[in-house]
């Protein structure tokens, strides 16, 4: 009765921004990013990539409720960097890594087709 429609878990409604940013008022260099209509697939990957950055002191994500399809990622950084910068860097690195993974696959498949 109260369950949302299934397409809501990946279709962003009109007017809602995909990613929104909230600075933490009490701690400097800390912020939360809310990503709409995403789940652990993106959240875990971004979190693990943020952990590799030495400027990031804290990085974590959560799904506030399983029926609300959004993730909140919280990032604390040193003064050398800022949460937005760390986040940008993490996403860019992931983009490049996935691109290289795709190319590695394509090389493998091409190699197999070439040899068969």
């Amino acid at each position, binding site marked *: 009765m109260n369950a949302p429609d299934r397409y809501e*878990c*990946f279709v962003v409604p009109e007017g809602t921004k995909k990613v929104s940013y909230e600075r933490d008022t009490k701690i400097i260099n800390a912020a939360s990013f809310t990503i709409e209509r995403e789940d652990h*697939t*993106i959240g875990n990957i971004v979190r693990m990539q943020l952990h*590799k950055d030495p400027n990031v002191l804290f990085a974590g994500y959560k799904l506030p409720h399983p029926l609300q399809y959004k993730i909140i990622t919280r990032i604390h950084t040193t003064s050398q960097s800022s949460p937005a910068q760390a986040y940008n*860097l993490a996403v860019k*690195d992931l983009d490049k890594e996935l691109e290289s*993974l795709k190319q*590695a696959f394509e090389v*493998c498949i091409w190699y197999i087709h070439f040899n068969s």
Partner: protein
Amino acid sequence: MDRPAAGASYQRFPRVKIRELKDDYAKFELRDTDASMANALRRVMIAEVPTVAIDLVEIEVNSSVLNDEFIAHRLGLIPLTSAAAMQMRFSQDCDACDGDGSCEYCSVEFNLSARATDSDQTLEVTSNDLRSADPKVCPVDQARAYQQALSSGDYDPNAGDQRQVILHLITRLWVLLFSITIELLSYCIFVADLRGILIVKLRRGQELRLRAIARKGIGKDHAKWSPAATVTFMYEPDIRINEELMDTLTLDEKRSWVESSPTKVFELDPVTQQVVLLRTPTCYFHGS
């Protein structure tokens, strides 16, 4: 505030090695990356790879024993060849049509017409009776049957392009072996059974006539759009044999030690009479 060098990058460079690649099964190793990457690949393969499945059913005549929505549900679960799915648009994104299913960019129309003739035999309505408007998108059984009928080795690349993939992740950091098993659409089609997927059985005088529209979708929306049957990954164990202790065993004891493992992990090298790991490790848990 000092900004770090703009070139700082903590990118990993994953490596892939495919061990097996069949029509509906594949196994590969993934190295130099993280477990989260393997898990994300697994989640995306199950839930976010787009395929085509029947989504809208207009029933003209149904005098079978199953009710309309039951049959519509069964039709939705029939797997269709989805190689064309990447070129299609999602029906909610398509602006060329008004969503009634006659648009060529976002939907494929199917027709089914079956009537049990006045004989005493039960008519089985199967996926082979579904007639597609687009030959590239058809029930996988039909594509397979067509392929087997050709049986001269002409491979139709549009038919059943699903693969099972097993990823083995081996991370250098922890020297743990990860292996991911992904089986895409392992339909249990026995070679002899080319009758197609059973939809409904009709008795003498019963009829079923309908028009179905297949659309592109993802597994997150409904499981009928999921291309994957099973997707698993595991760390591949790093096995090291304690050579000192192994040397204290006699040849017979070594042989019985090798044979005692339920899956074939070790072998006794006849030349050197040493116990070694098998060159191409099979899956340590289910021996596949």
